[in-house]
């Protein structure tokens, strides 16, 4: 099983990359209320990422803070699951990704909130409340889109099929969370009138730094300014 450093780094990377993707929606959401909601969720993810990466840096003990970890690693050094780095796609893809991720994060943070590592427990205790809101928001939209128009139903189904395989990687570290995760997901899908996609292909690699081609491009954009001015204060 992984060290606390690896855990904090991996979960921090999940949150950071998720935040980066969600923030891409800023000024592009289907309506203003949703623009605000997506920014909120991105801010929550970013907040959790900062706490987790800061802690990871301390555990590592090589003097790397949140910014060194966020801005000065290559994609091969990132430990996030591939799910969070996938392109946003349309709003249905974004909501499918958010549902799969946030249900997992809620369960994970709940479990970590009673961790013997007090620092991790503290971070998780704060993040679980935020995750509960993310789950509510994603569920609401998956149901709306699944139950909305013919087009929204088609898009939601396509989106779910496309991202489902990437959900398996979430449980490489926490296999015990898959059963409760599935039961929450099933409930939402039932209400949305959507079938759960079949399991099959299960892409992997994120936790060991083997990502999709999307991540290095995301990082090129995210890191460009920080890297252009080494060692300065912002």
């Amino acid at each position, binding site marked *: 099983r992984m060290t606390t450093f690896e855990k904090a780094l991996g979960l921090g990377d999940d949150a*950071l990359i998720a935040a*980066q993707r969600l*923030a*891409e929606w*800023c*000024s*592009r*959401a*289907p*309506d*203003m*209320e*949703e*623009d*605000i909601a997506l*920014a*909120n969720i*991105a*801010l929550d993810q*970013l*907040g959790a*990422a*900062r706490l987790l*990466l800061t802690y990871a840096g301390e555990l590592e003990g090589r003097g790397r803070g*949140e*910014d060194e970890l*966020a*801005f000065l690693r290559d994609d091969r050094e990132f430990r996030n699951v591939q799910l969070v780095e996938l392109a946003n796609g*349309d*709003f249905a893809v974004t909501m499918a990704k958010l549902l799969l991720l946030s249900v997992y994060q809620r369960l994970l943070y709940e479990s970590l909130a009673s961790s013997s590592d007090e620092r991790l427990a503290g971070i998780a205790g704060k993040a679980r409340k935020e995750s509960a809101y993310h789950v509510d928001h994603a569920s609401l939209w998956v*149901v*709306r*889109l699944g*139950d*909305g*128009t013919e*087009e*929204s139903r088609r*898009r939601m189904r396509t989106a779910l099929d496309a991202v489902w395989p990437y959900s398996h990687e979430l449980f490489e570290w926490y296999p015990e969370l898959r059963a409760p995760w599935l039961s929450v997901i099933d409930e939402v899908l039932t209400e949305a009138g959507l079938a759960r996609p079949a399991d099959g292909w299960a892409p992997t690699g994120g936790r060991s730094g083997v990502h999709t081609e999307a991540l290095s491009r995301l990082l090129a*954009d*995210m890191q*460009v*300014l*920080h890297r252009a*001015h080494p060692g*300065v*204060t*912002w």
Partner: protein
Amino acid sequence: GDLQGYFDAIVAADQKVEPRDWMPEAYRKTLIRQIAQHAHSEIIGMQPEGNWISRAPSLKRKAILLAKVQDEAGHGLYLYAAAETLGISRQELVEMLIEGRQKYSSIFNYPTLTWADVGAIGWLVDGAAIVNQVPLCRCSYGPYARAMIRICKEESFHQRQGYEILHTLSHGTPAQKAMAQDAVDRWWYPSLAMFGPPDTDSTHSEQSMAWKIKRFSNDELRQRFVDMCVQQATVLDLRIPDPGLRWNAERGAHDFTQPDYDELVRVIKGNGPCNRQRIEHRRQAHDEGAWVREAAAAHAAKKAVINV
């Protein structure tokens, strides 16, 4: 008439006109135009700064910037809601924006070329907005005045954040300092132009003053802004790019070079560097979101039937 008399009395007494009150049609139209333009400015204003969220140079700055742009969406919402109290729907307003039938602040038609532009927008553009908006907190129309109180509080927070960005840059490396100065050089005159044409050319102004929608003239506000900036620029250690800028002891204010009002007119008419891009971005987001909004409406309708 009685109604007009009552309206005039409320305005004269510095009390608030409320949505249920009778008001002159021209007053209503003026307010709709002004509040809508203000709301559109918040929404379009998300783009130039949003351009740097993904590239913000530290996680802290990323969080602050994302929250700021989110606040702008919130301001847009309050203001559309205020406009709706005057009998027009948000949807109508959004369509007028996309079709170019209503304006937004011309300042957002300039590009954000570097990270320092985020600082300059905060310091100068939000600074100018505050100078413009603080008097609007006492505007005669209640919903608008109340929205402005909330907005001004957040704007001054944003202005301080922009100031901090510039302060950090100007006290950083030579490259950072040059970046900050370059941004101030590019944003100074467009910010001055935010106060509108000089009083001699300003339409609408006199009636708006009488209605207590507007409290100060364009030139009065512009002067107030310049005087405020000069002092802050010293602390920032950045140069205001105006060779004609100097203290005039007689006036008790700074003399300064006016912005290029011909350029302002060109930008207002649609020919700024980013007008097309800003509207296209908004139109595209609106169009691409149509199926989502339709799905939400369809789902709500189904639920309503079930709950009957």
